[in-house]
């Protein structure tokens, strides 16, 4: 049988290519996830472990011991013990810590700017060069007291250069330091702006924030006093990173979910490939039985064939995954420098896992088809080739099971919607989907016929070809169905979520941007300028007065806006709905959090006052009142606020920048809801596209499956095609026929998947979106869904290119004389 096995593999190698590609893709997917996860972890290690580079042990305070460190910094070492330890070990120890100190330039100007003006952080630098974790960028390391290196970013921000002198500390501990070099150091708890020698660092030991968090030690640590523990570096760092590592693990788990989807799709595609191949070779198997091969021998040979394909494809997939993963690491580092990826050692467990998964996929996928091989009787070889069985019977048991799953699944989904249970929803969804897959051989051919009828008489042959083997058709479309269902569910879910979020922000932040001036009223000139700013759709000046309101430290404009409808996202309802005697305020801006809607506040303009009831959330840093109320407060309302509505699709950052410029010149301030909204949208976009990208792998695998099925069917129908060519089918017509067949399969799968996906999204919406956002309405993203169907049709056509070319190349005579 070994000869048979080898010969089969050699002859059928080309027919296994597609199946192998599918397995390779899935295995590579898993391995890439492994490499990236290890890379992220290595990146974390590299960053957080940097201060211990070159050391063997870390001396740290025990996690659950009594606090011995200074009161500023819990979990650090007792300062005297730490100093004693560093003194005792000398060159072999690197004390790690930090102190916040006042800092000035030579001449007394405070260093830095903003909130930290006049302050800096100082950390020690190790005596031994091996233990120094800061990377020198220019100059040299400090050799003695009075010298310091500065972090290159701080030096740039504060305009300090090598050779400059700075004064660190105050009073008795004030020291003049010469900056002798610039360093770079990774962001960790030990990162400081200025690094000095250990003796210099000790000088500030009485400062309140001075501490030693841990000591990195080279070689033997020796006897430690109570309140210190020692751990090897690797163990210490990975323990410290447990939290972050958990995040990485959670992320890997999420990616694995998508890999799981891809694997399921692969199983379908590979199983289909095997069953087609075996069906085509049934006569060969029967012949083997005729010449004396036992059932076991035939079965063994076939299984070994599948195993060989699995092993080869899995190995290739692992290699491809490793190459792709390691190739992606520098790319991610370039594209997203904030998430540094380290270059990990080969993640062996992941590689083995990927290999195992590939083998498993192949073996599982070949199990059923090989079982059918065993049933072939030796006589089958002697009978004339049977006509293609047009109607493969779909077992009653299968249909019954499908119906059961459908009914049970729908019931579960109903329960999920009533009971708000995600677990029940997932179970119901899985059950319904499995039911649909099992119904496939009955359902899909009918759908194909209905869709095919739209192609007219020219598409009839394609339609008939597409449905002639219902099981094959069903499995081929099932693979695509999985990806498309999930994709459309995600698209619809995200669109609904986004619409709900938009509705909420429209209601809560109805004004895109406002220019507010408390001192002087805004001029019509400014209004004109605002209106002319690109990206501004409409702007109005709003009359009001500057008022003091209970609970606000600063005065705010109180205004009335009968024409808010021109600019407000909610159609102006928020401004028009304010009745006399009430005021609409942004409660978030209250200083006094005890004020709630319904409370009364005192609003005073000059010497006039009004007691107003607070209603709902509001409109930013302004109070909106009824015109009557405003008349009560002032006789001369003036425009203190300009409300701006942004044009759709505008670059919010640019617009806010432009408005800022105008406002600055007029002495006004800009308040905007645009940037927050843009940031929210961007997050949703990134999430949507990542999910789509990951699902895209499954869809691509399914399309390979369509190409594969078509390719194998083309081989099977070579004679038929030759006859059609003889009867007068042109090459172009033949290619079109095959393209139409592939497009039919993919479009039907996509339409069905879209329907189910939207249905699932609806269930999801009823189950949790509506609970979270009561006013949310279902939003179906028609353009996106249309794009999905269109892309599927095009991809189907693409999948047909190779098989169709191959089929059209055969001349009618050659096809007819084929055996």
């Amino acid at each position: 049988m070994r000869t048979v096995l080898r010969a089969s593999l050699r002859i059928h190698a080309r027919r296994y290519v597609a199946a192998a590609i599918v397995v390779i893709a899935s295995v590579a997917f898993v391995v890439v996830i492994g490499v990236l996860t290890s890379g992220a972890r290595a990146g974390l290690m590299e960053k957080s472990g940097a201060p211990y580079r070159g050391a063997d042990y870390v001396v740290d305070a025990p996690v659950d011991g009594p606090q011995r460190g200074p009161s500023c910094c819990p979990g650090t070492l007792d300062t005297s013990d730490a100093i004693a330890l560093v003194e005792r070990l000398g060159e072999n120890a690197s004390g790690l810590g930090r102190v916040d100190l006042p800092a000035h330039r030579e001449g007394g100007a405070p260093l830095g700017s903003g909130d930290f003006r006049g302050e800096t952080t100082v950390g020690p630098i190790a005596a031994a060069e091996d233990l120094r974790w800061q990377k020198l960028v220019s100059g040299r390391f400090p050799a003695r007291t009075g010298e310091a290196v500065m972090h290159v970013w701080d030096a740039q921000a504060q305009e300090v250069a090598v050779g400059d002198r700075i004064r660190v500390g105050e009073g008795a501990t004030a020291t003049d330091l010469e900056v002798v070099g610039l360093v770079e150091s990774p962001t960790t708890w030990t990162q400081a702006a200025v690094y000095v020698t250990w003796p210099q660092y000790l000088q500030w030991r009485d400062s309140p924030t001075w501490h030693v968090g841990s000591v990195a030690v080279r070689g033997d640590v020796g006897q430690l006093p109570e309140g210190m523990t020692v751990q090897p570096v690797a163990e210490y760092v990975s323990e410290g990173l447990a939290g972050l590592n958990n995040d990485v693990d959670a992320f890997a788990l999420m990616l694995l979910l998508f890999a799981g989807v891809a694997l399921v799709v692969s199983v379908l595609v590979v199983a289909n490939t095997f069953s087609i191949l075996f069906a085509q070779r049934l006569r060969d198997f029967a012949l083997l039985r005729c010449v004396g091969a036992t059932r076991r021998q035939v079965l063994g040979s076939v299984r070994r064939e599948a195993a060989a394909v699995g092993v080869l494809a899995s190995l290739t997939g692992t290699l491809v995954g490793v190459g792709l993963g390691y190739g992606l690491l520098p790319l991610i580092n370039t594209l997203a420098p904030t998430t540094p990826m380290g270059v990990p050692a080969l993640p062996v467990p992941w590689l083995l896992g990927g290999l195992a998964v590939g083998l498993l996929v192949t073996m599982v996928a070949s199990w059923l088809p090989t079982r059918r091989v065993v049933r072939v009787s030796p006589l089958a070889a002697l009978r004339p080739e049977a006509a293609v069985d047009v109607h493969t019977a779909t077992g009653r048991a299968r249909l019954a099971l499908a119906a059961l799953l459908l009914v049970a699944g729908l019931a579960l989904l109903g329960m999920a919607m009533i009971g708000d249970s995600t677990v029940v929803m997932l179970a119901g969804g899985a059950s319904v989907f499995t039911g649909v897959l099992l119904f496939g051989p009955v359902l899909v051919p009918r759908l194909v016929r209905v869709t095919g009828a739209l192609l007219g008489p020219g598409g009839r042959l394609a339609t008939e070809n597409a449905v002639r083997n219902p099981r094959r058709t069903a499995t081929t479309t099932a693979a695509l169905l999985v990806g498309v269902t999930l994709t459309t569910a995600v698209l619809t879910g995200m669109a609904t979520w986004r619409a709900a979020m938009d509705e909420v922000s429209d209601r809560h932040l109805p004004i895109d941007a406002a220019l507010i001036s408390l001192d002087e009223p805004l001029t019509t000139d400014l209004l004109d300028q605002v209106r002319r700013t690109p990206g501004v759709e409409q702007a109005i000046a709003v009359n009001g007065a500057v008022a003091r309101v209970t609970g606000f430290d600063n005065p705010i404009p109180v205004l009335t806006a009968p024409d808010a409808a021109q600019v407000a996202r909610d159609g102006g309802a928020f401004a028009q709905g304010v009745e006399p005697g009430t005021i609409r305020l942004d409660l978030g801006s209250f200083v006094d959090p005890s004020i709630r809607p319904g409370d009364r506040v005192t609003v005073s303009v000059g010497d006039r006052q009004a007691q107003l009831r607070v209603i709902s959330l509001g409109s930013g840093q302004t109070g909106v009142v009824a015109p009557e109320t405003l008349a009560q407060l002032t006789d001369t309302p003036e425009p203190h606020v300009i409300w701006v509505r942004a044009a759709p699709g505008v670059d919010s950052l640019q617009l806010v920048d432009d408005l800022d410029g105008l406002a600055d010149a007029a002495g006004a301030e800009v308040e905007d809801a645009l940037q927050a909204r843009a940031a929210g949208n961007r997050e949703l976009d990134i999430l949507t596209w990542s999910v789509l990208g990951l699902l895209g792998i499954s869809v691509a695998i399914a399309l390979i499956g369509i190409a594969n099925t078509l390719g194998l069917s083309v081989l099977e129908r070579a004679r038929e095609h030759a006859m059609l060519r003889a009867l007068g089918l042109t090459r172009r017509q033949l290619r079109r026929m095959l393209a139409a067949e592939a497009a039919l399969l993919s479009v039907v799968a996509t339409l069905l998947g879209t329907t189910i996906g939207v249905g699932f999204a609806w269930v999801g919406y009823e189950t949790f979106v509506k609970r979270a956002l009561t006013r949310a309405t279902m939003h179906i993203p028609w353009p996106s869904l249309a794009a999905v169907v269109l892309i599927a049709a095009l991809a189907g056509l693409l999948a047909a290119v190779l098989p169709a070319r191959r089929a059209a190349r055969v001349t009618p005579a050659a096809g007819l004389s084929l055996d």
Partner: protein
Amino acid sequence: MTRMLGNSQDATREILAASARGLTKTYGRGDTEVHALRGIDLDLPRGRFTAIMGPSGSGKSTLMHCLAGLDQASGGTVTVAGTDLGSLDDDTLTTFRREHVGFVFQSFNLLPMLTAFQNIVLPLELGGRRVDDAVRERAHTLADVLGVADRLGHRPAELSGGQQQRVAIARALITSPDLLFADEPTGNLDSTTSAEVLEHLRRSVRELGQTVVMVTHDRNAAAYADDVVTMQDGRIA
């Protein structure tokens, strides 16, 4: 050498359905070169039933393929209905076949997923012609003549071998081709059914004025033909 067949010694070009001059066909190159046809000159007169006979590997199928425009000859010319097939590209050749040539094969001759009627009108549909009442009537007439009128709604799997072959003949005749080629049409049939099928072919020549060329190695089948051409090693013997 031009070989005139049977009693049509004085046949002119106008009454020729097809002719071949110096036809050669070579497969492979070098050591594996096979000369399937070694210079064939042949005239096929209109309205006659010609049988091409010969043992396996004599080149009779290759000759038919070349005459029918299914395969390109390596050398020489083939003229069917006044058209030189060598001058046509693949698309025009296909269209030409669709309009002027009909085929009946030994097996695998009907599309399994189409009904008998759909199979019969297939060549017209391939040409983009609508299946209107005229077409339907012609199909029914042919089916009637061939005795499969009551089987038109069935799929090939539900028909006997003889019925399948008669449906195939109807399909070949639906376009009223200048030439009808039959490649071992009785190869898969028992002797009674064979006789029926051959009788139908002969009737299509007698009654419909059809030109039929049949490739066979069965002497009994060849007996139904008006003329017999025997092939041996790529030559007409």
